[in-house]
């Protein structure tokens, strides 16, 4: 009889898949299927998040992943990541200079006036989180008119595409350490081709955080912000925009622009530390960057980068400074997979657990009886 319950597993799985497909389409005749462009545009931040956590810049497949996973962020990022793992690594880009980003937003919390000026861009930062009831029944005509009107009214040909970086100004003043050219020359660690064996280089930590699950990385960074750590960061610059990807031409080796990726970059400046070698004290830096428009994630990453550097140098004094603790617990694909697996049968191990408990109980019972008999 026990086997009856688990026989026909194939039919059960197929049935579950069909039922999920029904759930996706249950709106019936009153609905249109979600089209991929709408997902990319109207679910812009969700779409950004999936590309970032999936670790693959593929706007179309990211939309498809969101559609087929019914909007579950963990599942959608997972599908994108699993697709990525079937692809060989064919070519490597050189280290790209983000000062060439075509910006749609850049702000600095450290200076009021930064070279090139602040550009608030599209942001919810100062939005009032009131329910916009006028959108409850938005007509297609009204919807379509908004973007057209905006484009008609806004001609900002005078705004440059690229802006200088705030950090360069700080470096010029000697407030930051100069760029470590030797490290910049080093080949970055590829987390998709090599396992993390601790201690890991900073590039491995950065790429692990770049595809971290947003909520997980925020939670650990927040622990540092609240007091389990003392980074006290200032956002020197947060920029969102399109970074040109330069790849060597397969024949000539000359760098050519293969396309551009939407990304968010954050640089935080933290308080200075004693230089043990007696050099000039300077501010220290934390760096965050990820695909898509994900500001909370980029800032969290920058804070953790700074915290981890501290932990690597002096030994961790709290969880957010411990590379193993941070890097092994922020991946959404790993953590959701393992969480989900507890739903699978564990009959054998549980049988084994019961054997231990019963044996221990029996021993205790006979020991007690022994005492009573005396």
């Amino acid at each position, binding site marked *: 009889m026990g*086997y009856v319950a*688990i026989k026909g597993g194939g*039919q059960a799985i197929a049935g579950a898949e069909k039922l999920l497909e029904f759930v996706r389409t249950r709106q019936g005749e009153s609905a249109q299927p979600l089209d991929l462009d709408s997902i990319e545009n109207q679910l812009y931040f969700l779409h950004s998040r999936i590309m970032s956590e999936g670790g693959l810049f593929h706007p179309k497949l990211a939309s498809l992943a969101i559609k087929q996973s019914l909007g579950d962020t963990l599942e959608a990022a997972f599908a994108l990541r699993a697709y990525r793992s079937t692809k*060989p690594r064919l070519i490597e880009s050189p280290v790209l200079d983000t000062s060439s980003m075509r910006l749609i937003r850049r702000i600095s919390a450290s200076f009021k006036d930064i070279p090139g000026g602040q550009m608030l861009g599209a942001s919810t930062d100062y939005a009032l989180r009131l329910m916009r009831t006028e959108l409850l029944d938005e007509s297609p005509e009204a919807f379509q008119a908004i973007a057209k009107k905006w484009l008609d009214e806004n001609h900002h040909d005078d705004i440059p595409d690229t802006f200088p970086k705030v950090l360069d100004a700080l470096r010029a003043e000697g407030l930051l350490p100069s760029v470590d050219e030797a490290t910049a020359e080093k080949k970055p660690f590829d987390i998709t081709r090599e396992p993390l064996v601790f201690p890991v280089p900073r590039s491995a930590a950065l790429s692990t955080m770049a595809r971290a699950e947003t909520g997980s990385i925020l939670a650990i960074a927040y622990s540092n912000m609240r007091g389990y750590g003392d980074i006290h960061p200032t956002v020197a610059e947060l920029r969102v925009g399109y970074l040109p990807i330069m790849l060597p031409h397969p024949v000539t080796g000359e760098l050519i622009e293969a396309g551009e990726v939407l990304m968010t970059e954050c640089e935080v400046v933290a308080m200075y530390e004693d230089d043990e070698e007696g050099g000039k004290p300077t501010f220290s830096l934390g760096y965050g960057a990820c695909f898509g428009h994900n500001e909370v994630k980029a800032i969290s990453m920058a804070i953790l980068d700074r915290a981890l550097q501290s932990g690597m140098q002096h030994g961790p004094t709290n969880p957010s400074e411990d590379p193993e603790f941070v890097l092994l617990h922020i991946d959404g694909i790993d953590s959701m*997979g393992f969480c*989900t697996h507890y739903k699978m049968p564990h009959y054998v191990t549980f049988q084994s657990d019961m*054997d231990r408990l019963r044996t221990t109980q029996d021993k205790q019972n006979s020991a007690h009886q022994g005492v009573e008999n005396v």
Partner: protein
Amino acid sequence: MSNKTKTTDTQFRQASAEYNFGFLDEYAKKEVRRSVLKAIAIPGYQVPYSSREMPMGRGFGTGGLQLTLSLIGKQDTLKVIDQGSDDSVNAVNLRSFIEMICPGIDTTTQVSEANLIQSRHRIPEEPLREDQVLILQVPYPDALVVVEPSEDKRKIMHGEADYSRLLVKLYEDIVKFNEITISHRYPTRINGHYVIDSSPIPRWDVPKMHQSKALILLGAGREKKIYAVPPYTLAEPLEFDDVPFRVENFNDEHGQRRLCHRCGCDHSFLDEFIDSKRAYKRYQCSDSDYCDEQLTFKTSASNQNLEG
């Protein structure tokens, strides 16, 4: 499809031409195979590898799956087991995925027919042969994780064969409970040096690793480790001189060995079922293929008796 599938699944998935044979690209398979060679060369050592994301959840056997997909070819016959059964949903799911993504392979439910066996939580009851490879799915690859959370520190402890804290944990169990409480994932010393997490197999299965004729590979996808118990290698569960290692006990209150209610077997690992209608417990072989075989054997023997 060319699959001479000997299982009774309804194939509910279609292969997609977009994917490589075995899902992984060939570079990824090569990396896994290189790691396997290293794992065999250093018995019990956890070889780190990059571990690709598979299209099923981390924790559902992605480590075992990457081993299987890196080793399997069209000439191979595969058996997939979960909790001892070929029919449990996860086994069906894994098998169906492998059949879909590896057109031309054979699958079977019979241990004797398979040369690759991927399993979760059990080693088959029937002794394995030299021409077979057993692949075990592993959630926690490191036996030291119960006493040391940092991987960096554990690596040093393994290198120095420093298992003192693990032995202290076993000793403390005896002091507290008069019994070692580790039920499964029993720490086992391989080839006299590295202590492995034997994967969540019951203690019942641990002695099968010792001097096994078949190569045993263990894959942890989420934790990105591969390790091995090569054929004819020492595999000794941790124990004390005066407190020997013991497997699960299937005797009833009178000291009688419980029998499988289906095939009558008196020497296999049993699953316990509660008969909800009659409110009593039943026991049945956990290894479904072994149970079937015992049943066939018993039936044919009794038929012969009738004829004779």
